[in-house]
Structure formats: C-alpha cells, structure tokens
C-alpha cells in the first residue's frame, strides 16, 4: 500500500470524534466537538460538503445508520439520542430523546437487520431501543461503559467498561451470559483510573470478539500502547493479542472489519502521532500501515469495501500557552477527513 495517499482531503473547521458511511455509500457523516453533525456527499474520488446539522450539545460522540431505512442515529455527550434522515440538505428529525442517558453517551450499536439499537454511557447504563426510539431493555452496570456492539445474530449486546471488564448481555432474557476480562486495558495511576477500551467488534462471523484500545502505562500526559485483543466468543479464551509501536502511539481509537478478513485500525497518541494499521489476526506486525496521519479519531469503511475515510487532526495541534493565528485570534484545531482507496488486489 505504500505510500498511501488520500484521494481527497475534506477540510473541517472543528475536530471530529466519529465517522460512518451510510449503507448506500452516498453519505459520510461524523460528529464534531462543537455539537454539530458534519456530512459529505460521497463521490467516486471526492467528498462534497453538505450543510452541518445542529441540535446536539457538547460533543457528537456517535453516529450510526439504519441498514435499510433512510435514518441516521446520532448521540452526544449530554445524553441526547436522535434519529433523522440524512440525504437531504435539511433532514427531517424522526425522534429525539434529550436524556436517553444521563450525560456522556459514548457509543451506538445497531443490529444487522436494523431491529434494535443499543447505547452506553458514562452513567453506567446500557440500553436497547427500537429504531423508532422506544426503550426495550436496560442494564445498569456498575462502571462507566465505554464500548458496545451487538452479536452478529442481534440477540446479545456486548459492552465493556473502564476497568476492561467485557460482558455479553442477552437483553431479551435480561441476563449476563458471558464475561471476558481484559485487564491490560486498564491501569490506575495516582488517582486516575485509565480506561484503555475504545471499541468492540465481532470478527469472522461472530467467532471472535475484538476489544481494541490501549495498554496504559502512565496517566495525565497519557502514555500507552495501541492494543487489539481477540477473544474466542464461545469459550472466552484470549486467542490473539496485538500491540503496536511505543507508548507515544496511544490508543486504537476506532476500527473497521474488512470483508477480506483483516482489521483496519486507526491510532491516536502524542500530538502528531497517528497511524492506519492493517492487521491480520495472529500476525505480530501490521501487514501494512500509513503513518502520515496525525491523531486519527475515526475510520469508516465504505460499503464498496474499497474506499475508506479517516478523520485525523491538523498538525501542530498542541502547545503550551498563548498561540494565536496571524489575525491574533485563538484558533481551534480541526479534523481533515481523508478519503482513501485500497489498492487493487493482486
């Protein structure tokens, strides 16, 4: 793949924390730290900006699409969860729950058939919803819940907390059916409990559960190593552990499972450090990587399996004290959204 160059880089004026393609591949949407949802029309080799969507608060932390209906689900750090159409310049809101969670709603998951959605948050709750916003089930956990996904059959919600405890919850029977331990994804340093978990996903048709994030070393100016764990979902056995780089490389912030059987992960570490890693489970090193992507926050795989987008961060995003632009204004950092194309097979 080297050197991997983006087909197109869409500029933004704010930092993005999540991004996903619509199932028809026509729209890329992401959440920004100014409470807006940013969207682009996806052309073959270009992203054309659409009007941003307002109505959220804090950070827009998660975006998900219904697999069949023209609905986009978004969530924010104040607990709002909403559904709206997405293809129009002025979408229609289907429903909005201002307090779906008490505060930071971290992630949304949706079943492959679109029958259920799940959400999790800092309020330690895991909730299941119908696509029309009706509450179906609730599990009150005892820790901040960082990540969530559905089992491929849509029967179980798998969630992971700040201490690296992972649980499978049969939400119909309201029963925890399995638990997995990922202690490497947690460390207490001084009075900081460092949560290393960032994302959960299934692999190989549901045989493996992926838990990705970081192995924390030190808190505050956090130092930690990108880490990907793969558990046998049936037995709970840890089958693969992948780590990459050094403590400056930080977190695997997001990943996508490619239909060809590998994992596409993006990292964000010390300012300026960010990578795309293509990982075959069981191999010690990434089989390909791209390193010129400062502080990647999200990766979205296009339904064509060929293109993908990465929301990274502008260079020189850090610095102590007063730094102003040429006009004397205090500038915000931004997230360039990079559209890539995987090289042709063979």
């Amino acid at each position: 793949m080297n050197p991997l160059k983006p087909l197109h880089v869409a500029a933004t004026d704010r930092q993005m924390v999540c991004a996903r393609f619509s199932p028809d591949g026509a729209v890329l949407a992401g959440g920004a730290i100014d409470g807006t949802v940013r969207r682009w029309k996806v052309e073959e080799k270009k992203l054309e900006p659409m009007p941003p969507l307002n109505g959220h608060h804090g950070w827009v932390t998660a975006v998900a699409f219904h697999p069949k209906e023209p609905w986009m689900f978004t969530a924010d750090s104040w607990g709002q969860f909403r559904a709206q159409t997405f293809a129009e310049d002025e979408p229609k809101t289907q429903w909005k729950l201002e307090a779906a969670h008490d505060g930071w709603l971290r992630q949304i998951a949706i079943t492959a058939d679109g029958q259920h959605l799940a959400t999790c948050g800092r309020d330690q709750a895991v909730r299941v919803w119908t696509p029309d916003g009706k509450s179906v089930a609730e599990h009150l956990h005892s820790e901040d819940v960082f990540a969530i996904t559905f089992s491929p059959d849509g029967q179980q919600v798998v969630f992971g907390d700040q201490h690296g405890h992972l649980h499978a919850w049969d939400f119909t029977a309201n029963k925890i059916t399995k638990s997995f331990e990922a202690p490497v994804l947690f460390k207490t340093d001084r009075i900081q409990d460092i949560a290393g978990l960032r994302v959960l996903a299934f692999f190989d048709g549901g045989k493996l559960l992926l838990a990705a994030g970081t192995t924390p070393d030190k808190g505050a100016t956090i130092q930690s190593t990108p880490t990907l764990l793969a558990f046998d979902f049936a037995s709970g056995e840890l089958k693969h552990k992948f780590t990459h780089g050094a403590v400056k490389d930080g977190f695997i912030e997001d990943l996508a499972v490619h239909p060809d059987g590998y994992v596409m992960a993006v990292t964000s570490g010390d300012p300026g450090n960010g990578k795309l890693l293509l990982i075959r489970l069981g191999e010690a090193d990434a089989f390909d990587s791209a390193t010129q992507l400062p502080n990647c926050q999200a990766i979205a795989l296009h339904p064509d399996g060929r293109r993908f987008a990465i929301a990274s961060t502008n260079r020189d995003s850090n610095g102590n004290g007063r730094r102003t632009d040429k006009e004397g204004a205090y500038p915000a950092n931004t997230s360039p959204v990079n559209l890539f194309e995987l090289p042709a097979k063979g």
Partner: protein
Amino acid sequence: MGGLGGLLSRAAAEEMRKSDKQVLFLWLDGGISQLESWDPKPNTTFGGPFRSIPTSVPGIHFSELMPKLAKQMNRMCVVRSLCTKDNAHSSGVERIQRGDPKTRGVPYPYFGSAVAKLLGPGESKLPPYVWIKPGNGGFRPEDGGFLGPKFGSLAFGDGKPPENLLRNPALTAEEDDERNELRARLNERYAAHRAPEYTEANSYVFDTARELMKRADIFDTSKLPEREVQRYGSHDLGRHLLIARNMLEAGVRFVKVTSYGWDTHGDNFNAHASMMPKLDQSFSAILEDLAASGQLDRTLVIAMSEFGRTPRVNGHAGRDHWPEAWSLAMAGCGIRKGVVVGDTNEQGTWVKSDGYDIGSLFHTWYSALGIDSVATEYDNHGQPLPIAHEDMKPIKEALA
C-alpha cells in the same frame, strides 16, 4: 533570623504570632482544567463534552463533575480571572508558590514557609508547615528561601508519620529526657562554631518533631468511623485530606496537600471524569467538616495549580498548559462567601475583567489571615523585603 527576627517590626511580629489562623493549601499538581471544574463553558467550541450544573449560589455554575462542591459554593470564593505568566511546570510551580515578587537576587519563601515565619507554630508547637503528599516524605529546606532552612516544609509521604516517630519502648520517659538534655548541650557546642540559620533549623525541626511524637494519633485514621473515612474516599487524595483535617484540628498552622497527575496533555476528558469525582468527594468533605466544627472561620482554604489548561483540545484529546485565563477556589477565614471574582470570555480563552497574577493572590491571602501585606516586611540580613509583590494589591472582591 531565628525567633522573632527576620521581620522589620518586632512588635508586629509578636502580635501576628498570637493569631489562631491556619491554612489548608490544596495543590493540584500539573494543572487542573478550569473548563472541567470552576469555569465551565458548556456547548462552546472549547467547552468539552461535559455539562454544567447549578451551585448553591443562584447564577453560578460548575462542571457537572463536581456536584458535591457545587453544594459548597455558598462557602467559597472562586476567582476565574487568573492571568499568570509562566506556562512551564518547573518554573511555574516555584513562581506561584513563592508569590513572584520582584527579583532581588534571593529566593522568596514558599507561601507555607512565609506563613510559618509570620505566624509561627502557634500554641500547638507542632511543625508550622507540613506537607502531605504521595510518595516519599522528608524535610524540604529549600521551600524556606531566604528565610532559611528552618522554615522548610516537613513532608509526610503518603500521609504516614516519619519512621521512629514514637519513643522507642525500650526507653523510659526519664531516659528519653536525659538524652534530649545531652542533645541540647551538644547542639549548643556545635552551634557555637557554625552559621546559626543551619543549627537553629536542626534544633527547631527536632523540637517540633518531638511535639509531633506526642500526637501520633493524627496519623491514625483506623479509629475513625468507617463512614467518615468513606466520606473522604479510600484514594490517596481522600486519605490525605482526612489526615490534613486531623492536623488542622491538632493546630498545625499550615497544611499543604498535594495531588499529582493533573497534567492532562492526553485524554484530558476521561482523566478529569476519573479524577474530579475524587476531588469533589474529598474536598467537599473537608469543607463540610471544617464548617461544622467552626474551624473554617479561622482557616484559610485554597485549592489551585500552577496554571490552568488550554481551551484548545489537542490531537490527543488533551489540554496543554494555560496561564492566560484560569481559576482557583478559596474558602474560610477572611474570604467572602458565595462569590465569583472575575470573568472569562464566552469561549474561555481570555480574561474579560481585570486579570490577577499570583502577587495579588498573596496580598489577598495575607489580608485574609490578618497580616498587613504592605506594612509587614522581611528583614533579610538588613535588607528590607516586601512579603508580597509591591506593585500588586489584594483582590478586594474576594475578601470578607
């Protein structure tokens, strides 16, 4: 410079030493984020993911990460318009804790050393400047600056008493007294040929440590009701603030408590989500207890760092060092209750009102302790030195 020396006015010095005022100085090392604590800017470009919540004073809001402290706002004064100069830890910590007077070629004492000098150990005769901190303990003479090593801090690592604090049980009290008489005579002989500031420091520290030996109960929280311990929390900060409460109750003049790990250049928001509830729990508990016992009326309480954190969120979801517009909280004797002093702009980037540097805070703190920060001067071997930056003044709005 021992005894009442070191101050130009001996009469004023004697008067100050009658004071029953005490200080709790909570140092959040590395730089707490003002935006995730005292000066939230929710729903703005740099405001972060958290909401704000109302406090017990209508119109004043804190970050949602401090619900218990929000209930204490009626006892507190928050200054939101700190504008200091140094954005490096190494120099910033020194500058803030020494008050940054004009350069005169001598290192100024830390605030704790200055209070130990100005107000003395008080009736308790316990060490006047103690420091409860994670890690190792020991004596840190350099805090004393030009006042000399005698006024350095006595640090209790992890809040534990020094080793061998108690008299060896093999010794009777009489034998111990005889040993100390011998020690005193040897000290006198030793001191006759050496610079007095060092030998006095040795004797002084030893004498105050002997007083501490009588109060080993200060460090023992095992006899406290479990509920009381849990109110503070089982984490370092909770345990250390509980011991700080015991020390203040025992009469220690100045208690500094340090919490490390606030330098959140990476993952700032999850870090504050983890640490702020511990600060919220333990700091609100000690404020409640000091208020309930009436001790808050004679104790100046300060919670601060060397600077705040940048409004801009860096690529590692962190915030960097920001001395331009940040906050601190105060409570207790001499401090006006339930007020916010100063203001930052809508984005939290700059101070909108008058910006206050650390020199103004030193004047404010001295005023709160009943010390005239203009009339009182140090006598550094004949060189008169102001106790606070002479170009700055107290923050009147912060004073009761």
